[in-house]
């Protein structure tokens, strides 16, 4: 099936690159299990949109190491087309699209595939409850997310194989939720609270290698003793890691992504993968995983707050209401 509205490649089809051995250039930033990666978040980078935001995880020293970059633009509230039926609430739609060059392996097509539709649906679910839709009858709020670059681990056939569950899609979804939350706030749409996305994973280190310097027992957010469960099948090397990166060299046993509204302490979205068991001390791995994801989302929320505050002060500065409070900073907000 060819797309007649676009320029297609040779009719014979092309194949992605084959390397004799697996991909070699990879590096990771060493961090403790509770440390989130630094986030660059900036709003209003798409001036034609009502609100917009750009989110990026910083590139490590090696430039070819995958990182995550996405932009979000929000339009609305704008009137629904006259053909649609009356709606007392605003209709929020979210569209997530991977750019053709954003994923490892094969080039991605322009036509939306199932993965993108799934993520779009989850994104609109996660955002829908945060917006005060009753304030905007007969209106539409459209959220567009473009993924420019992602870390892989999407479960594509050509992707780099990793045993365990793939967290790539979860990272993308969590980042999209955070970025869209910031963009909705930037658009000035009335919200109950801002949604931030967070991911946590239970990982098992490969070959007993220590990735971080702390284990879950030190963290004080759920966790607990992991030893002597399932007859020693899961041993002490299982660690709860916030914001796991799919490129890092460990096996992810289970992962959870949440959309979390920190001020109201409410979850708008929960998505878990992998098998989770009950600990001997009565705590659920599910619970500790979700608590970890919430902790990650809370960290991201601080970045969103700062990015929005800075933009607001900049705007107030421009009209002369506030003097000399915003400036000198380019919006790079970090946590950790």
């Amino acid at each position, binding site marked *: 099936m060819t797309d007649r509205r676009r320029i297609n490649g040779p009719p014979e089809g092309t194949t992605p*690159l084959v390397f004799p051995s697996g991909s070699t250039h990879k590096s990771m930033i060493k961090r403790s299990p509770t440390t989130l990666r630094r986030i660059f978040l900036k709003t209003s980078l798409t001036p034609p*949109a009502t609100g917009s935001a750009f989110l990026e995880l910083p590139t490590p020293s090696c430039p070819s190491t995958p990182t995550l970059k996405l932009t979000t633009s929000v339009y609305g509230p704008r009137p629904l087309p006259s053909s649609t039926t009356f709606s007392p609430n605003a209709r929020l739609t979210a569209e997530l699209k991977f750019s053709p060059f954003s994923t490892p392996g094969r080039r991605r097509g322009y036509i939306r595939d199932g993965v993108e539709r799934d993520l779009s649906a989850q994104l609109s679910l996660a955002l829908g409850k945060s917006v005060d839709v009753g304030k905007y009858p007969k209106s539409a709020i459209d959220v567009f997310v473009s993924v*420019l670059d992602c870390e892989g681990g999407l479960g594509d056939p050509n992707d780099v194989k990793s045993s365990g569950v793939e967290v790539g899609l979860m990272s993308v979804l969590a980042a999209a939720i955070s970025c869209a939350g910031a963009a909705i706030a930037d658009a000035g749409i009335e919200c109950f609270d801002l949604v931030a996305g967070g991911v946590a994973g239970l990982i098992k280190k490969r070959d007993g290698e220590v990735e971080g310097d702390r284990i879950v027992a030190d963290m004080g957010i759920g966790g607990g003793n992991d030893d002597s469960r399932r007859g020693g099948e899961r041993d002490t090397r299982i660690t709860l890691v916030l914001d796991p990166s799919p490129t890092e060299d460990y096996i992810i046993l289970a992962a959870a992504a949440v959309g979390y509204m920190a001020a109201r302490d409410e979850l708008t979205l929960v998505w878990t993968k992998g098998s989770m068991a009950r600990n001997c001390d009565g705590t659920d791995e599910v619970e500790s995983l979700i608590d970890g994801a919430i902790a990650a989302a809370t960290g991201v929320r601080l970045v969103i707050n700062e990015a929005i505050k800075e933009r607001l002060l900049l705007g107030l500065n421009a009209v002369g209401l506030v003097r000399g409070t915003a400036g000198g900073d380019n919006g790079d907000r970090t946590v950790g």
Partner: protein
Amino acid sequence: MATAPPPPSNPLSFPPATFQKLAPKTFLERHLQSTPATRPSGRGPDTFRIPSLHTNSLSHAHGSAVVRTGDTAVVCGVRGEVLSLAVGTGGRIVVLRSGEDGRRENEEGEGDEIRERALVVTNLEMGTGCTRDYHPGPPTDFAQAVTARLHRLLLANKLIPSKSLRILDPNTEEIKAYWVLYIDVIVISLDGNVLDAAWASILAALRSTKLPQAYWDQDTEGVVCYPEVSRYKPLGIKGLAFTASFAVIDLGAEKGGKVILSDPDEFEEGVCEERVMVCALEGERVGWIEKGGGVGQVAEVVECVHRATERFKVWEQLFAKVLGSSG
């Protein structure tokens, strides 16, 4: 409104933003009639927006560039995939010995493989929420038209040497496969004149592209690449070419005649019907001129060419600064 506005002396006066929406053409005309002539954006008629450029910020693309001119921002990624000639070519195997390169690299032979085998695939995506009128889904007529123009420009300027796209059998020096370059331009933010920004991003991305060194592996009957980053090779893009777009508005003979607006923004593109596009090449040469939508004098086109060559120098400096000697 918290406070009532003072009663207007003239009942038909609007704030500028309303005036702009009600009578866009008059709004633009009034701006251009002021002295000195100023556009609504504050630029003079012959002022281009200042461009900015970043390259190689994407990890999965072989080359990439981000170009921003004013509020128009585009991202271009170049990705190579392999077109194998071994299977399914339907008798289209063309055997070219690399020794023949010298003879075939004349004007005639150069672009032919690229054109015949569709080795360069250019696409422009505007359904990213870059502006309120473009929605996700199939590309609009405008997006398709810009894509076609970019593709034509790329082929016409013969910037990509076809030699760098050939993959050879190391023993027999026979062409076994080709690189296919997928050039995808994603418009992040659109405020007019997407063509110039998209073209510059394509050129910068191509100049920053480094493909792995690939060879034909006889054992697997397939193309295999060396994974070492040090063996990645640039494409060897020849020369530079930059487009400059203009919108022309006719104010009427008594009000100052035609005004040529360089690098029009979204509002000006919506008002002006007459367009000129000039592709300037190195050495103050001109590679391509497009003009349509109005009746004009030759002097008008000459003025556009003059501005395009000036614009070329701005881009050239920016490319030299960002890409350095590698470009």
